[in-house]
Each structure stands twice: as C-alpha cells, then as structure tokens.
C-alpha cells in the first residue's frame, strides 16, 4: 500500500513538473518545474532502493545542472523580451513534432504490447544486507570500470569545451577573450562602456 502511494505521489510530482517545464511562459519557472521533476525522480529512486542514485540525482542535477540553467536564464536576461515568432534553428518545430510523435508512439507501443510487471526495474540483484553505495561501488569499479574511466575523459572534454566557448565570446578583441569579456567594474556596466557616454545613459534606457 505504502509503495503505491509513494509511487503515485512521486509520479504526480514528476508529471506536473514536466508539464510545468513545457507550459510555463517564464523560463525561470520552467527551470524550477524541472527541479520538481528531478525531485520526483529522486523519490522514485528511493522507492526502488537506489538511494545513492537518489542522492546523486539531487546533488548533480538539482544542485549543479539546473543551477547552471538558472544562471544562464537569469543573468542573460532571457526572461525579458522573447520573440516566439523567430526560429533560431530552422526546421526545429517539425523535427520536434516528429520526435515527439515517435517517442509518444513508442511509449504507447510499450503500454499496449507488453504487460506491466510491477517488478523492480534494476538490472542487477539488490542485496538487502548491504548498503546501496557499496553495491554500486563494487559494480562501478570492477565490471563497469571502462565506463568509469571514460567518464573522466568526458569531463576533461567538457572543461575544455567550456573554456573554448567562453573565449570565443568577445569579438574584435585580439586579447585573451576570457579577460576582455569582463567590463572594468566587474558588474553593472555594459560590456563596452566607452560606447555609451555616461550622459546618454538615461536617454538610451528610456
């Protein structure tokens, strides 16, 4: 009885959050809905005895990745003027429609074709006498060693990618762009302060 209640509540949070991501007009609200979904998934992980994964879900996804999303949304001011008419990527809407239909069709096919067993969806056996972390660790550092080590390469690529992208940011500057992108005051000033004389600021804003 209790597992079913937990599942229903967590699933409801997940679905509501997912709908919120799509339907909210304000991107910050969307990102927060995403956090709700991630929490729901974390609860589902706990219900499946995958406690370590639940913690990782919250620490990495809610604690790091959505924080990055929020940084980008809040600090770039994407939430202000947003033009829904223009399409940044040509053909993304038809492509999204096709992908959505395919995934939806796949889900329905799974529901119709196979029965729902209600079993725990873990691949390996969960040993109730051992802490969940120990079991994950043992698998990760023996059977799935390759995946673990290749992750480090992935992380290195991510770091290099982040730095290269940040460097490309400032056009017209031959200097190290990571530095040149920073206005002299660190905050509050437009990126190139000398193009806007201080006296004109009021007029420009109004």
């Amino acid at each position, binding site marked *: 009885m209790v597992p079913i209640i937990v599942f229903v509540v967590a699933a409801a949070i997940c679905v509501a959050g997912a709908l919120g991501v799509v339907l909210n007009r304000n991107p910050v609200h969307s990102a927060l809905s995403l956090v709700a979904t991630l929490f729901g998934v974390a609860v589902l992980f706990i219900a499946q005895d995958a406690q370590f994964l639940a913690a990782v879900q919250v620490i990495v996804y809610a*604690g790091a990745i959505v924080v990055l999303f*929020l940084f980008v949304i809040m600090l770039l001011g994407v939430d202000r003027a947003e033009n829904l008419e223009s399409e940044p990527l040509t053909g993304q809407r038809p492509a999204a429609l096709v992908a959505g239909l395919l995934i939806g069709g796949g889900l329905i096919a799974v529901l119709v074709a196979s029965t729902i067993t209600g079993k725990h969806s873990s691949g390996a056996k969960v040993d109730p006498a051992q802490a969940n972390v120990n079991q994950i660790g043992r698998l990760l550092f023996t059977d799935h060693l390759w995946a673990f080590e290749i992750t480090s390469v992935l992380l290195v690529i991510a770091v290099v990618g982040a730095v290269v992208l940040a460097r490309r940011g400032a056009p017209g500057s031959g200097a190290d762009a990571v530095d040149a992108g920073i206005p002299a005051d660190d905050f509050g000033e437009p990126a190139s302060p000398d193009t806007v004389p201080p006296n004109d600021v009021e007029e420009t804003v109004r």
Partner: protein
Amino acid sequence: MIFAGDPLLSGHIDLAVVAIVVLKTVLTFALLLVGTMFMVWFERKVVGDLQNRIGPNRAGPFGLLQTLADGVKVFFKEDLIPEQADRVIFKYAPLLSMVPAFITFAVVPIAGDFRHGHSGVVSIFGHRTLLQLADPPIGVLLVLAMSSIAVYGVMLAGWSSGSKYPLLGSVRASAQMVSYEAALGLSVVAVVLVSGTLSTSGIVSAQAPWKWNLWVTGVVPFVIFLISGTAELNRPPFDLVEAEQELVGGYQTEYSGIRFALFYLAEFMNTITMSAIIVTLFLGGPSGPVILGPAWIWGLIWFLLKLLIFLFVFVWFRATLPRFRYDQLMDLGWKALIPLSLGWLLLLTAVRVGDVEGWNPFLVTMVGAVVLVAAYGLLVLAMRAARRNRQLAEELL
C-alpha cells in the same frame, strides 16, 4: 561493514512507531528552533563583548529573550513586495532557505551511548531507536544534497526581487556557494574513507571513543571543511553576499517583515546545523566518556559542548576577520582549497590502501608527498602562465 539505519524503522511500522517518529520530529524541530533563538542572542552578546559593548540586555535576564521579542515584533511589520518582483518566487524563496537547514539537522546524532559495543541505540516505550531523527544509509549525501538546495533560496530571492543589489548579491552568493561546495564535498570523502560508511550514526560509531576523524584524517580535511563551511553559510569573512558597503543587504535587500525574519532565522539555523555536522563528522558527535547516570544523557552533554565550541568559533570569525575581496574568495576556493583537498584525499587513500596491502607506510607517504609536490609545481606553473597572459591582455587594452 555497518549497514546502518534506525532500528525503529527497519521493522514493521505500526502506529506506535509513527507516534515515536512524530514525537522525535517535534522534539528535534523545537530543539533547533530554540537553539536558533539562543544562537542569535549568543552571537549578539559575544560580538558585543568582543567589541567592548554590552549587547542585548533588556528583554529577560541577560537579554536572553531578545530574539523572542524581535520575533514577535516582526509579525507586526509590513511585508512589502516590490512591484517589479516575481511575486510567487519572491514569496516562497525564504522557505527554500529554511527547509534545508531543518532537514540537515534531522540526520545529526544528538545523543546516545556510543561506548564500545554500543551504537547509540536506546529504548523508548519498548522500541529500540537512535537518538537522532533520521539515519538514512546515505546520510552524508543528504547533507550535501541539502546544501546544494540551499543555493536556490539565495539565488531565487535575489533574482525575484527585480532590483539591482539583490541580483548582484545573489549571483555572487550562488557562485560562491557552488565553488565551496566542491571543497566541502572532497573533505567529506576523506571522512567517509576512514569511517567506511555514509550513515551519520555509523560515522559517529566509527569514531568512538577517541578515534576522532579530526586526527584520523590528519586535520587538513577538517580545516578545509571548516573554511568551506563558513563560506557555504555566507558568514564573515565570506559574507560578500550582504557586503553592506557595496550591496546594501545583498539578496535580502527587498525583503521585509516575516519573510526577512525567515531568512535571518535560516542563516542562524544553518550555522547551528553546520556546527552540528562538523561535530558529527570530525569530533565524534555525542561520543565521550560516561561519568555518572544514564549514558545517553552524557552523549547529549558532550554533543552540546562540542557544538558550543563551533558556534563560538563562527562568532569569533565574525568579530575578528575582515571580509574577503571577491577575487580573493574565489582564488582561495578554487586554487587553494580544491586542489589541497583533492591531493590530501588521494594521499590518504594511498596510505590506507598501502595499509591494507601491507606496503611500507613510510615509502608510500614519501612517494605520495613527492607526487603532490610535483602536482603543486604544475599548478604554480599554470598560475604563472595565466598571469603572463593577463599582463599581455592588459597591455593590449
């Protein structure tokens, strides 16, 4: 290894168990709330003393009830919401700051008998239970998860105000909290390494009676945890978030009335929680010698004494240390604490593995030290290269 968990909740959960859980929840909640009340008083009094002032002395004996008086007053204060604010987020952001503090405190072992052979379990109404609210097998990770959720409170409060200073304060704060979380996480790994478990009561048991992680992990992780813990709390000397000379009140600028009070409460609550976590992870929590009477009471006494030390240390930091500049803060976090904690962790791992494998501990330490020095040299070279590039860029500007 110890597969921990509260014995109360590992069996069948009936009405009596639920009643005990509710009782424990209310008690823990009240303890933290009353503790926070006195913490605010304590901080004001100690800072007052250190600055040669008297501090609060009107409400109650020694001004003890000052916080209560302030708390009551705040209910009667107007709760303003700026017109440019994102109303929903603005209203509920204080909640996101406060709730993680409560949940983190739930996994702290508060009392209990941790002498040899005991694991802090006591009997209440015929049910065996731990004297801590919850003991999930991933307790330490729960603490980390909550500290990453706490970032949201600060971040959303600043953004939703729709005003300059809060936004600047919250951006600084979130970048700071995120940076120090890495160092925090790495120093906790060292504790997990020597304790062999992620459960908080397991970590306390592993330290009893005198094998405190403070010296078992070799002091360095403790120092790193203390520094990054202070930074996570946004307390002085890391309080750039609310650097009043430049940012008015940081992310709290637009808050007033009860919502401001909740942020204020959360700040002090987090201080208590962080001290409690330090005591649990590094100072053996409630473990200590039993002198007279029931053992679990001595656990409580030792816990509170150790807690008091860190509460005082945090207040002392505040009264003594000048605030960091933002680039110094980030440099300390990224260029000193993170590499140091990573290096120390690897050295500790090598020594421990050498212990299991029967290698010569002296040799392992020496090789480890040489590798670390080489890595440090590499880091210094990298910093020099960065400085040179920067100078070149400055000449071009």
